[in-house]
């Protein structure tokens, strides 16, 4: 009988060990466990850390010379608390440069003219500091970076 009791207690303890973690896991599993966050994302490209999963355009400026030839975006991931810049070309035949201007600057420049709807984007920076995105196109030369024109307004995440 005593042996049976010991078995029962052992089973209850085993269940007790597993039960709390499964309850907590289902109820309030922190999403950030699966993503980099803030400065932990700095220097990575968004797709590398799946930060593009929930990416939003939080500020954008159209590049007009004078016709609108591209869109420069400040991108934000709430999962990763990070910003980056993306410039989408609307008309074929332009070199494109884009810069995320924040606590750290990252830039990209196309080595050749791009087709319409092709886009370039920078590495990420933490959203804890003021950041903006700048972009430029050129029909003749590779764009010098960092870019300081066609900039969005400044953003910070808190």
């Amino acid at each position: 009988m005593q042996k049976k009791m010991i078995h029962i207690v052992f089973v209850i303890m085993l269940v007790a060990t597993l039960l709390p973690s499964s309850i907590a896991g289902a109820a309030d599993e922190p999403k950030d466990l699966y993503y980099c966050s803030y400065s932990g994302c700095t220097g990575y490209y968004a797709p590398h850390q799946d930060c593009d999963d929930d990416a939003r355009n939080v500020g954008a400026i159209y590049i007009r010379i004078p016709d609108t030839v591209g869109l420069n975006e400040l991108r934000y991931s709430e999962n990763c608390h990070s910003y980056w810049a993306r410039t989408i070309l609307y008309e074929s035949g332009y070199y494109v440069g884009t810069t995320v201007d924040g606590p750290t600057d990252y830039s990209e420049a196309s080595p050749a003219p791009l087709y319409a709807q092709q886009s370039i984007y920078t590495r990420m920076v933490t959203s804890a500091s003021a950041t903006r995105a700048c972009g430029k196109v050129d029909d003749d030369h590779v764009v010098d970076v960092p870019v300081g024109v066609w900039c969005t307004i400044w953003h910070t995440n808190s």
Partner: protein
Amino acid sequence: MIKKRYFQIVAIALFIVGAAYIVSTTFQSVGAINDDSDGSPSTDDALAKASPTEVISDLDPYLPMAVTKEGLTLEVLDYRWVENEALFDVKFPLVDERDWQLKNVYLEIDGKQYPLWATTMVEVVEPAVDGEQVVLRYENGIVKDEVIADTGKAYRIDTLTFGDVPLNLDKLDFMLVIKEISTTPNEGGYCKPDIIKSIQNPMEEAFPGIEIVCISEPGFDGFGIASDSTFVEDAEALSLFDTIVNRVLNARIIGLWQFSFGG
């Protein structure tokens, strides 16, 4: 005697269950705090309900102005001008989780079209996931985010900025025209088989033998005509290619939402 012993064992077991639960919960909390040890905001108020920030101008009794097309209601919540810039706060529904934007937008004043210069997110209430909605709100240069219980409504408010408008805009008739709500794939979403096929097939039909390539590498996304293709310099092929890529890549809800304002 045996009953008493049994009662004691059950009591001890219940104590162990309770203690294990408390210890486990404590470690979970410590883990969550450590994850944010680089200065991220506290998540204590994560479930606090957001209050809407719809600013309505006192200057115009007609605001907010709403127009419904394609089953979607767009609203102008406020408008204002600063020197030669006119700004409109426009609210539009989000039909799914993608990054929808107002596109093909212009301001018409005295028959002249003024292109959209810039957009700024004011507020996003994202579609619900597992009974919760993420809210992003921009105020005084700061984006704040929080999670709220499902309200059943997902929407976005953007400030649209137009430049070089007449200084006496308040005395003129003008019209805000929004022709579409569209979304471009996120960075990792370009080279999907269905997208590639939707571009390759019509191009192949018009230019037999043409090869379309999709490139998605760090820092770059896009489609192109294969560099060894005879069509890579063909103006007609390039023109059709631009049109098809634009059509396939950008999901669109075409409508005509027009908002007229009197002087």
